[in-house]
């Protein structure tokens, strides 16, 4: 192309975030000395209105046709700056960001000189890549204005209702035989006198009868394909074995000979193999639990309306939706995992969930919280807080709702048994809603005792009584107390079935196991996957109000998406050069999205990318033996240019780190955000997927003298944003390892690591280890 390249470089101070560590004026001066750079400036905040205006003005005034912005992570502001340059008439893909904050100033806080040198290298790499950027155009696709909501708890119900009310079709998929989630099991909710039934029942009924909502209970999502606006979802509807004509007479249950523990009542009583999960279960029909059913057929005979069909079959459906809301909720912590509480060993140690069931007039004890061992009224009751939360060796996080739930339960118990001694053993009482502090005062005034301390042990004494040993913080010594009933305030854990969803939809989870939002502050409802949103406790412990508010928020995102008929998808895709393609078909096999087809050009077989289906991972480009495929914005030429620039000086001392956009690059960002310091000789090169890398590109880095090379991507099996790109990468790295010695390269200099978006610590550890090794090798 004959076009003259005119580059503008902007070095952001980010207030002091960058400027306090990196000498930005030196970096800007250096940038202006680089070939093709027409202007290079510093700016206090490039993202502020004035900063953006400066860039726009320069583009016009200096006829810039490439812009390099050295500031924060592209994950934060790439969309912002793409828009900025567009406004000045430049193609958005002619802007390149250089991350000198998360990957430089924040991780080398005490090494000003080295950080400045690194920033200069990074800018040089960015400019080198920018020279080769090509203008791309966004793709437009139509949207299907149907939504899928996964999980029929309070959050899923709210989200489905809001979307349906806005006039869009919603499919609500719940794995249990009834809607309702955990709220159905509660006997009271904390902050007001409304009963959970009055909250939940109209929502469940409303969903069932809503003309825009189709409810699938006893159902699962099997697979999700496609992209924002155009997802294809396969759902399995497990058989219920009871038809809708069921009149709820209960004859079947009466004759069923199989008794199993009743999960709804937290195992405190039993139910039959044919059962109604709870009285107000919705849809209100009985259901057969095939895991336990013996197919004796007694129920079939007993049913007066012939509603039972034990031959009922599983159904599979395919739905087309434009957006997905994940609302799979939580699981209660199982205290059996913590021997010191002796749960399941001693009868009178129960969980807070069990107490909820006991307090329910329809519950196993008819609303009376009596001792499980002898049905007696307990006179000495202890609550133990933080069971399964705030632990060093287990769940580190605070479960947020258990303090509130204990206050609520203690209040109810005190009203039922005014004479009883009730003590709460806690570490901090964490109440957050505006009305709760008053309730806390009232329970204290009513005589409930709060003791700050650490529970060491729960043991049993005569008559199934209990003895607890506590280290009291106030007295600063061990105390022992006789107790008649102990309630463990169990924490919340990520839902196991929710994790299946993680594999299916690829929404990443954090170190705590809960789903991760796209940005903890500004995008708390979005996921990194466009068109997929989160609601409720699947994101982390939340009370009902917060789950509901957030679910409405997720619904609003969907409504916003559906307000337009067509959506824009970005222009980063791959393209085959038919002149170079030899028709080997390797790319067709490796493309995770079946987006490459074979076509005949002048009687020769050639590969061709289907643009709408391409997700731009570049796995094909990494696979192609002839280099016929270009992954836009991450072309081989561009990657080579970045490597060249990074290794221009002292290559042997440097570590080239190839990081995939979704996990490892984000992990390195997270190291930055957490200010985890690591060696300054790391040079990160971003690709969309680790599967973009070919053996040749990795080799190229060694040829140019790189001391070490790190290749990192998302954890197998399920984390890869592009399904299997990480496996392709692994295959290539493994095969390359074998040939390295022949080329005289010590395989130790190449390392493959899986680093998730939450694993800033791992990124730090790996780079430190590599730097140390590099040092050792050099002697």
């Amino acid at each position, binding site marked *: 192309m004959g076009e003259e390249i005119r580059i503008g470089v902007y070095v952001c101070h980010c207030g002091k975030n960058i400027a306090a560590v990196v000498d930005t004026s030196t970096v800007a001066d250096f940038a202006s000395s680089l070939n093709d750079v027409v202007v290079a400036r510093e700016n206090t905040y490039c993202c502020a209105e004035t900063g953006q205006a400066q860039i726009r003005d320069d583009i016009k005034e200096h006829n810039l046709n490439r812009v390099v912005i050295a500031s924060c992570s592209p994950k934060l502001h790439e969309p*912002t700056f793409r828009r900025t340059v567009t406004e000045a008439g430049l193609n958005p893909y002619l802007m390149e960001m250089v991350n000198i904050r998360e990957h430089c100033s924040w991780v080398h806080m005490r090494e000003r000189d080295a950080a400045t040198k690194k920033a200069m290298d990074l800018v040089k790499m960015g400019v080198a890549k920018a020279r080769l950027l090509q203008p791309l155009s966004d793709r437009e696709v139509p949207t299907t204005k149907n939504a899928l909501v996964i999980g029929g708890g309070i959050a899923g119900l709210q989200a489905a209702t809001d979307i349906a009310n806005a006039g869009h079709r919603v499919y609500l998929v719940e794995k249990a035989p009834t809607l309702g989630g955990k709220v159905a099991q509660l006997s009271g909710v904390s902050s007001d006198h409304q009963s959970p039934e009055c909250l939940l029942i109209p929502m469940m*009924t409303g969903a069932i*009868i809503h003309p825009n909502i189709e409810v699938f209970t006893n159902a699962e999502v099997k697979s999700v394909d496609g992209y924002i606006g155009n997802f294809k979802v396969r759902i399995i509807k497990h058989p219920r074995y009871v038809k809708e004509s069921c009149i709820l007479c209960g004859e079947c249950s009466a004759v069923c000979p199989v008794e199993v523990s009743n999960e709804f009542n937290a195992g405190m009583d039993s139910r039959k193999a044919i059962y109604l999960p709870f009285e107000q279960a919705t849809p209100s029909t009985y259901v057969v639990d095939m895991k336990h059913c013996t197919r004796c057929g007694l129920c079939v005979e007993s049913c007066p309306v012939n509603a039972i069909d034990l031959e009922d079959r599983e159904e599979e459906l395919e739905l087309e939706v434009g957006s997905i809301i994940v609302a799979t909720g939580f699981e209660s912590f199982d205290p059996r995992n913590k021997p010191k509480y002796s749960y399941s060993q001693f009868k009178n140690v129960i969980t807070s969930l069990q107490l909820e069931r006991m307090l329910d007039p329809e519950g196993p004890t008819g609303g009376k919280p009596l001792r499980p061992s002898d049905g007696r009224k307990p006179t000495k009751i202890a609550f133990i807080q933080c069971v399964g939360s705030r632990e060093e060796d287990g769940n580190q996080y605070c479960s947020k709702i258990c303090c509130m739930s204990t206050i609520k339960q203690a209040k109810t118990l005190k009203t039922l048994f005014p004479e009883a001694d009730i003590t709460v053993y806690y570490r901090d009482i964490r109440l957050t809603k505006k009305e709760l502090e008053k309730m806390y005062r009232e329970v204290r005034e009513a005589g409930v005792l709060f003791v700050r301390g650490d529970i060491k042990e729960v043991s049993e004494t005569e008559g199934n009584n209990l003895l607890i040993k506590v280290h009291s913080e106030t007295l600063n010594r061990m105390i022992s107390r006789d107790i008649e009933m102990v309630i463990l305030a169990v924490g919340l854990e990520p839902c196991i079935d929710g994790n299946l969803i993680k594999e299916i939809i690829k929404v990443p989870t*954090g170190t705590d196991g809960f789903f991760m939002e796209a940005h903890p502050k500004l995008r708390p409802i979005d996921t990194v996957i466009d068109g997929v949103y989160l609601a409720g406790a699947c994101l982390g412990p939340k009370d009902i109000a917060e789950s509901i508010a957030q679910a409405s928020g997720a619904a*609003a995102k969907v409504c916003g998406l559906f307000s337009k008929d067509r959506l824009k998808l970005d222009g980063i895709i791959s393209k085959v050069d038919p002149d170079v393609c030899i028709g080997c078909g390797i790319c067709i096999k490796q493309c995770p999205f079946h987006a490459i087809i074979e076509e005949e050009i002048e009687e020769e077989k050639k590969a061709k990318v289907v643009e709408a289906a391409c997700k731009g991972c570049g796995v094909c480009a990494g696979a192609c033996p002839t280099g016929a495929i270009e992954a836009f914005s991450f072309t081989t030429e561009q990657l080579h240019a970045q490597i060249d620039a990074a290794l221009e000086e002292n290559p042997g001392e440097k570590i080239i780190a190839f990081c995939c956009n979704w996990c490892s690059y984000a992990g390195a960002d997270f190291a930055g955000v957490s200010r985890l310091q690591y060696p300054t000789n790391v040079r990160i090169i971003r690709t969309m997927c680790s599967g973009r890398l070919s053996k040749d590109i990795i080799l190229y880095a060694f040829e140019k003298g790189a001391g070490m090379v790190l290749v990192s991507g998302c954890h197998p099996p399920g984390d890869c944003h592009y399904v299997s790109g990480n496996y392709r990468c692994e295959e290539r790295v493994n095969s390359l390892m074998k040939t390295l010695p022949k080329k005289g390269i010590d395989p130790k200099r190449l390392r493959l690591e899986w680093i998730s978006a939450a694993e800033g610590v791992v990124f730090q550890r790996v780079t430190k280890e590599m730097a140390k090794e590099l040092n050792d090798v050099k002697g």
Partner: protein
Amino acid sequence: MTKTGIFLCVCPSATSAIDIEKTAKSIELADRVVYPYRYLCSQRGLRFLDDCIDKDKLDRIFIVACPEDIHRHVFKRASSSKGPGIEYINIGKIKDEKGLIDSIKERLKEDRGKVIKEEVMTREVLVIGGGVGGVQAALDIAEEGYKVYVVERTLSVGGVMAQLDKTFPTMDCSICILGPKLVDAGKTPNIELITNADIKNITGKAGDFNVEVEIQPRYVDMEKCNGCSACVEVCPVILPNEWDLNLKPRKCIYVMFAQSVPLRYTIDKEKCIECELCKKVCELDAINLDEEPKRRTLNVGAIVLATGTQTFDASRKKQYGYGRIKNVVTNMEFERIICASGPTSGELLRPDGKHIKKVAFIQCVGSRDIHFHEYCSSYCCMASIKEGRLVMEHDPDAEVWIFYNDLRAFGKGFEELYVRSEKEGIKFIRGLPGEIRENAETEDPIVTFEDTKTGKVSEIGFDMVVLAVALEPSEQNPRLAEMLDLEIDPHGFFKELNSTSRPLETSNRGVFLAGTCQGPKDIPETVAQASGTAAKVCTLFSEINQPAKRL
């Protein structure tokens, strides 16, 4: 003869004090049947309702149940397929069977079938308050395709978040993540920002509110000014900058902060000496020293309240000496001190120039204190941990002490940050200090406290003490509440329809709540809730679209 069916929902929470049988007996006549049913709003209940309507050929139906807004959508849909419309009686406020019987009889006398006239509907929305909550609500509502006005009292949108340095728990830079959102709001064609403006009056109801707004003069033409700042250079009047605790100067013609949206200059008319130097230098002829306040009337269908909070006046807590002791500051002030764009350019300096090496944070100042506010402000434990970490980042040798009662690290990633901070050296002392004195010579504040973990009383001097002050309801809330016929909760925050199940809605059907004006919360919760109001607006607009048949 018409036959009337009275369906009584017997739900334990609403009817436990009412004798259902007695009620039924005293109302039932040949043409009037009472049907008690447990949980009428359940799927079973609806089947029962349908069956009875068919079986007994009812042509007038009453539903006596909890407040209508909880279940209206259920019964309305169920009834639309059946013949008669449904009349509701709210059981929520009824105490005993006498009350119930009376109110049923009263309603039976009323003429049925009052058809309400089709509702007027303006599909435009007003957001009051342009903090992160208001801006997020505006962005999401605009994305749904509706026009949004944001009325903000100050010169720029941004709210509290614009003043913060970093944000917990991930410690990212506040203005860096907020700034672009503000710029977005300023640019979105469906959003109109009306800054420097007050709400004067509101009349009307859901679908059709009339709002009178008074826009204060900036003395600079918003259309003409392009933010070039030539005027600032020539302005001779130098004033303390409120944004930076008066520690940094600004001119009489100024912007609130560098990332202000809109980025337009304003003259502080009270201090202006009318030298007109700015007027002369302004090439765009944007300056008009005689500008008058303007009035505008907006017609909107829904209103989102996002007026946020104000911070507690720490001088009310006398024993901590705020206002008296120079180096006792509030956490809001400390955010500015530590902020790169703040008065000390991010250096940890006291006003007297001394380096801050030892800082104490005191929690619950004005919160959890029956003398002031009983509620917990919920952000301040984490804010202090954040600020403490920032101190140590600036100076690894600095000492940070946090005095607290309960450390409330309850949100996502909070406990992890707390544990990490304790490991990294922040001292957490259980127990709030009794008082703070000043060392007359060094001006160091001296903190007297009893560590409840050890029971010892000690006195320690610090370079600076930071008070983590409460978030309190804005003084403006009562006025707005009155205009909108809303309830205020006992603390002064706007009251939601139901704190568990309807956190976003209010007793006024067209008014929704976003962010801290409903109660203290952090940024993520504010943002999520603000997005939620966008869905409520959408629902309202589609509801009003299909006018209810009868009331």
